[in-house]
């Protein structure tokens, strides 16, 4: 009996049902239930209206500064609930630090946000506590963290309650004044008093099947940029900054990144069925839209795609941040390789992430290094929008980075959680159990979410870096971090808002493979200051304060059974 147990392969290990991937070693365990997550996202079975298909975001944040990532799930309404003035509850779960979570929604006062869509997290008022911005169908909500476990809805005072159908959002210090501004994308102009008739028009048909209408055939809405005045209020500078989207393209995912490394953060908006925007920050408070000329507006055929989620990373280690966007089915997820000089190439097929994505509608996504080998891999949450068709529920994708500019899709070999088919939407990434690897949370359209604990037994080292700005914004959003360990050089940025209308851990994670020393950590802060820290030990959470270096370090929680 003992011999039998010893010989039992990991793929049959009791507990999670997850298996070890022969090719990439990915091992994720669905811990949703055991973590005490009981949240259920609400939607109708039929989804007769587009507005019932597009929610919901999810965020990983540390609202109580205890060093453990908490989770906020955005919930939506339905047309019937709206008409009957019914309610649903979005949920905040506090991480107890022992693998379980407590539902603190009521105490925190963050549950009633109406028809929620997405979320972005950052400390907009530089008080040391992460605040929440929830996008909605209708007025959005800015929930100020009071620092005592509660939040106050300050939307009206702040002036950021865009009343349209908002989707992606990103806190971004576009003018490098140390205060986080806010960009919000808007989707369709949806009139609840004139509901589109299910299946009636050409735009309400999908391969001959009657479905919900849109977005094509519906009017879109422009986007918004709010400048932080530093006194708890914001000024709408959308038009002045040149980011208004006067044609009303269908905005979805938003990500902020200094793509051209000129020290000024740029903004990318993934638009559904319309060309994407890449707003190049000119440094004078205005932006120039360079989507077309940069090669990121359309795919290589010059075609607009049904873009949803977005993520950024230097996947090929050439020092430039590349862009990945998830798309509708029968079209491929697109990888725009950054060629420098504000030019991108569609490298999707070359990177071997395109063909495998064709059957799926992709949403939440992130470049993340699941096996700590120092090369970012790629996750995509999938699920269709039309329950009337066969493959409404879809499995998620996991692409392993082959370190040669290509990826291999390994989800099917990565165990039970990846074989399950659901209608995935938002996805957030972060080290929930502080054991040095990145976990995944997916908000599904119907019902329970998915909390995937990363149990990949790589044996590799890693580091988590938490930035604290001083002259820069408090969270260090926009800080560019370079980590050098021998011949391994990695770059990333602190970002608020990414994936599909979601928020990942603001701490940056770097895998180091077997390297036991970090030679250099270089941080270029949004204000332009640079900090360089040498000879750092891995396998810990480093807190680095602008101008002061490492101010705190905590070793990762040991997870011997899984490492």
């Amino acid at each position: 009996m003992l011999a039998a147990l010893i010989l039992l392969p990991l793929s049959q290990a009791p507990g999670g049902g997850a298996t070890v991937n022969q090719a990439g070693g990915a091992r994720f365990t669905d811990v949703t239930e055991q973590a005490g997550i009981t949240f259920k996202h609400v939607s109708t079975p039929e989804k007769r209206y587009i507005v019932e298909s597009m929610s919901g975001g999810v965020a990983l944040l540390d609202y109580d500064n205890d060093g453990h990532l908490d989770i906020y799930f955005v919930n939506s309404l339905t047309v019937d609930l709206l008409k009957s003035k019914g309610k649903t509850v979005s949920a905040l779960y506090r991480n107890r630090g022992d693998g379980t979570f407590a539902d603190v929604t009521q105490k925190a006062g963050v549950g009633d946000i109406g028809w929620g869509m997405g979320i972005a997290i950052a400390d907009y008022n530089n008080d040391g506590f992460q605040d929440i911005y929830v996008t909605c169908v209708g007025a959005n909500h800015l929930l100020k963290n009071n620092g005592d476990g509660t939040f106050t809805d300050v939307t009206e005072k702040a002036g950021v309650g865009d009343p349209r159908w908002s989707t992606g959002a990103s806190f971004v210090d576009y003018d490098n004044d140390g205060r986080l501004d806010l960009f919000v994308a808007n989707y369709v102009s949806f009139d609840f008093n004139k509901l589109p008739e299910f299946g009636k028009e050409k735009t309400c048909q999908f391969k001959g099947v009657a479905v919900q209408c849109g977005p094509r055939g519906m009017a879109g809405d422009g986007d918004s940029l709010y400048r932080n005045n530093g006194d708890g209020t914001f000024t709408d500078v959308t038009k002045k900054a040149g980011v208004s989207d006067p044609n009303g393209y269908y905005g979805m995912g938003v990500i902020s990144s200094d793509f051209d490394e000129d020290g000024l953060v740029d903004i990318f908006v993934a638009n559904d069925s319309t060309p994407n925007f890449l707003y190049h920050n000119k440094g004078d408070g205005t932006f120039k839209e360079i989507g077309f000329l940069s090669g990121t507006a359309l795919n290589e055929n010059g075609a607009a795609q049904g873009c949803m989620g977005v993520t950024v990373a230097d996947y090929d280690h050439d020092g430039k941040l590349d862009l990945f966007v998830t798309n509708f089915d029968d079209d491929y997820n697109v990888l725009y390789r950054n060629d420098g000089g504000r030019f991108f190439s569609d490298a999707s097929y070359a990177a071997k992430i395109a063909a495998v994505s064709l059957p799926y509608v992709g949403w939440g996504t992130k470049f993340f290094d699941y096996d700590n080998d120092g090369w970012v891999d790629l996750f995509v949450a999938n699920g269709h929008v039309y329950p009337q068709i066969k493959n409404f529920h879809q499995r998620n994708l996991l692409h392993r980075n082959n370190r040669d500019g290509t990826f291999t899709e390994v989800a099917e070999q990565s165990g039970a959680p990846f074989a399950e088919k659901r209608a995935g939407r938002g996805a957030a990434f972060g080290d929930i159990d502080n054991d040095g690897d990145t976990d995944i949370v997916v908000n599904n359209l119907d019902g329970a979410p998915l909390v995937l604990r990363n149990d990949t037994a790589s044996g590799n080292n890693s580091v988590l870096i938490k930035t604290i700005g001083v002259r820069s914004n408090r969270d260090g959003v926009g800080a560019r971090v370079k980590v050098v360990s021998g011949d391994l050089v990695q770059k990333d940025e602190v970002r608020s808002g990414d994936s599909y209308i979601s928020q990942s851990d603001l701490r940056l994670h770097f895998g180091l493979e077997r390297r036991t020393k970090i030679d250099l950590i270089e941080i270029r802060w949004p204000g332009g200051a640079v900090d360089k820290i040498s000879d750092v030990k891995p396998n810990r959470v480093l807190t680095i304060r602008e101008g002061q270096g490492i101010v705190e370090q905590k070793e990762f929680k040991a997870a011997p059974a899984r490492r």
Partner: protein
Amino acid sequence: MLLAPFKFNARRAVLGLALVCIFLAPSQGSRAQEGANDLAGQLERAASLIGGNQLAEAERLLNQVLKVRPEEAAALNLLGAIRAKQGKLVEAEVLFTRAVASDKRLTGARMNLAYLFLLKGEPEKSAAELKEVLRLEPANAEAAYRLAWLLLKQNRTDECIDLVERVRQSQTLSAPLLAVLGDAYMRRGDRGKAVGALKSALELSPAEASYHYTLGVGWLKHPADLQEAEGSFRRFLGLRPGDAQGQLHLGYVLLKQKRHAEARDLLERSLQTGAATPEAFYYLGLIAQGQNEDERAIGLFEKSIQLGPSFGHVHVALGSTYLKLKDYTRAQAALETGAKLTPDDTKAHYNLALLYARLKQPERAREEMLIVERLKGEGKARDDDGDTFAPPPL
């Protein structure tokens, strides 16, 4: 590939003429009944000889008749058929015309004349004869089919549909006529009715390969139904396994579905079976491009260009490959050629915009993007028709 077996070649035409002639049955009055029977017998014998290709014997018999009855319409018609079979079309026309002049109700001679006019490239005259036949014999299915086919060939789609739908009111349509109707509806853009007609034709003649082919082409029309198209082309190839056009089309359908290995296999087979078309090399190049085999893709695109220098899409594909490889000089040459040959190709202009941007020519880049925008506004963008590359000739 043409839908109908109604082709302009002498062999078929003459065979057709002979067949028509067989149906000629001259009718005469009472006293002369005996002689008439004798005449009918002679004519039937002559028709039979023509059918057996014994032209000299048939001509001798007919000359005997015409000696007694110089304007005997049926004999003139048969003699015209012999001349047509001998390739003497001018003499044949004179004889058919005399036959019609002698007996205006002799529909067989009018049918032969219709054929002859087609051979001479006079479709209007041909149509007029066929219409006269239908006026005389509204139930003449052969005339209806040929007239419908002729109208379709002349792109008189609405007239063709009206004709066939009128015929449908009085009789059950034959498979060929249903197939012509399907083709006509397809050209009018009514895929639902087109598919309906073609499916009816296939119920009557399930082994007629060309119907499967036409149906497959129909499924490729916007919005393409690739699964249905695949089924049709597979059935077509089941009946004609070595048909290069069928392989090309099925290869295209599989390529559209990103089933690259299967598509490559079929396209390579189409090349082996003789269809060394620009499209086949183009598709194979696209497959290579999609699999990151850029050098191979370039070779295939160049072969495609050798075969069809005016096939604009392949220049665009070649240019985009060079752009990907950062060979900007070659990319510019290929893309500019492609844009010139296919000015409505958004991919050409989009890639040119990207290229000019990289060459630090922002004005030219902007101009190209404006063209892309304009084309999108006009509904000509590739994403609007669901196509990412040029279809084979449909």
